[in-house]
């Protein structure tokens, strides 16, 4: 009987003390809620389970996963920035030359039906006869006398040629003569005369750059387009450049009498045309001057004593 009473008393005491603890906890969490703090949770002692985690290799797994996420984020960032890349010089010039052709389609009048003159094949044979290989080219015939013949800068070892149909018809140029004209233009591009002229300040840094979180410089492109207009329609090449090109042509064609004679006669034809036909007066401004070219080509007479 005494034993049973003692056990009942112990149970009652234990129950009342645990109730006090619960009430105290509830009160403190209520206080915390009132203060805007999170309810108290017994902190986990990680030091105690560190060994368990290490044995499970969960720690190294976390490091691995963090690295993968970091790499993915970096990749995403690079991709995002890469979207703002500007083509490098290898792609920029081809794109821009075609952009200029598109913008000037109505002035140049290249969108017209024309007969197949077979110029692609004849120029290919011409280049190969001179030992110039792996040169890709696009020839665009234009239906205007304003641009007689011109080569635009393009990708590495690629050339865009403009050739006026009224000009070749007026001069009645043969395929060989047309190839010679195109080859002159090829040399001008090769010497970088066009690119140098069109390279406005700032373009060098612009090409191949990136404009992420920067304003896109449209003005710069407009300036380059204006330079294209200037060199093609108005200013052309200077005497020194013409002399360099003519001298190079002379040196390259000298070994082949047929080609050299063809070149000399063709310059003579152009000289005659610009002196007689009002439509082609502007030619002298672009390519000065056929008359001088003839004198540069003419073999010097040595005085024999």
């Amino acid at each position: 009987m005494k034993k049973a009473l003692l056990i009942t008393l112990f149970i009652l005491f234990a129950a009342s003390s645990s109730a006090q603890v619960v009430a105290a906890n509830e009160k403190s969490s209520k206080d915390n809620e009132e203060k805007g703090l999170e309810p108290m949770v017994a902190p986990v002692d990680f030091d105690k389970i560190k060994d368990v985690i290490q044995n499970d290799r969960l720690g190294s797994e976390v490091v691995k996963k963090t690295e993968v996420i970091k790499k993915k984020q970096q990749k995403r960032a690079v991709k995002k920035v890469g979207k703002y890349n500007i083509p490098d010089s290898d792609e920029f010039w081809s794109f821009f030359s075609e952009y200029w052709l598109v913008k000037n389609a109505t002035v140049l009048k290249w969108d017209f039906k024309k007969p197949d003159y077979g110029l692609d094949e004849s120029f290919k044979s011409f280049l190969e006869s001179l030992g110039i290989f792996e040169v890709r080219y696009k020839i665009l015939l234009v239906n205007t006398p304003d641009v007689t013949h011109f080569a635009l800068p393009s990708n590495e070892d690629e050339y865009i040629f403009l050739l006026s149909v009224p000009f070749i018809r007026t001069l009645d140029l043969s395929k060989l003569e047309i190839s010679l004209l195109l080859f002159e233009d090829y040399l001008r591009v090769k010497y970088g005369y066009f690119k140098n002229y069109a390279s406005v300040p700032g373009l060098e840094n612009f090409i191949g750059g990136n404009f992420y979180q920067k304003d896109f410089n449209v003005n710069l492109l407009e300036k380059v387009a204006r330079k294209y207009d200037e060199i093609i329609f108005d200013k052309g090449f200077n005497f020194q450049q013409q002399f360099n090109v003519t001298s190079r042509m002379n040196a390259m064609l000298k070994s082949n009498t047929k080609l050299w004679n063809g070149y000399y006669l063709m310059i003579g034809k152009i000289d005659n045309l610009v002196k007689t036909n009002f439509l082609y007066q502007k030619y002298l401004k672009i390519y000065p001057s056929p008359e001088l070219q003839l004198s540069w080509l003419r073999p010097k007479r040595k005085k024999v004593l």
Partner: protein
Amino acid sequence: MRGLCCLLLLLSFPTFSSEKSVRVSYYNNLFGHIHKNASRYSQSLSTIGCGHPIKILGVKGEEISSGEFYKVKVGPYVGFIDKKYLSSKKPTCFQDRYPRFFDNVGLSLTDMYYWGKLYDQYAYGRSTVQ
């Protein structure tokens, strides 16, 4: 007369119905045109951009070609496109490599049309080692 009409109808029906897509190719230039006929000067039905999927039409698994052109179907249009502008794999286009630059250049629909025409007008060539 009625019999002749029936005969013509019977003859023409299998030709139209047997034209099916043989394979899918991708346009590999910046812009281009689906032409009404197999000629680069033929009327443009639609302007397409680089990477555009193009169904090449054929009969009994054989592609329908006329000279340098394939008969193709692009969206609702059935026309012709130059073989040299098609790739079997999706090309890495300029537009995709430089998307923001391309957007900022600000090409209009007319520009895109002319750009496609430009590739039709070029005479291409390449000097090679013999």
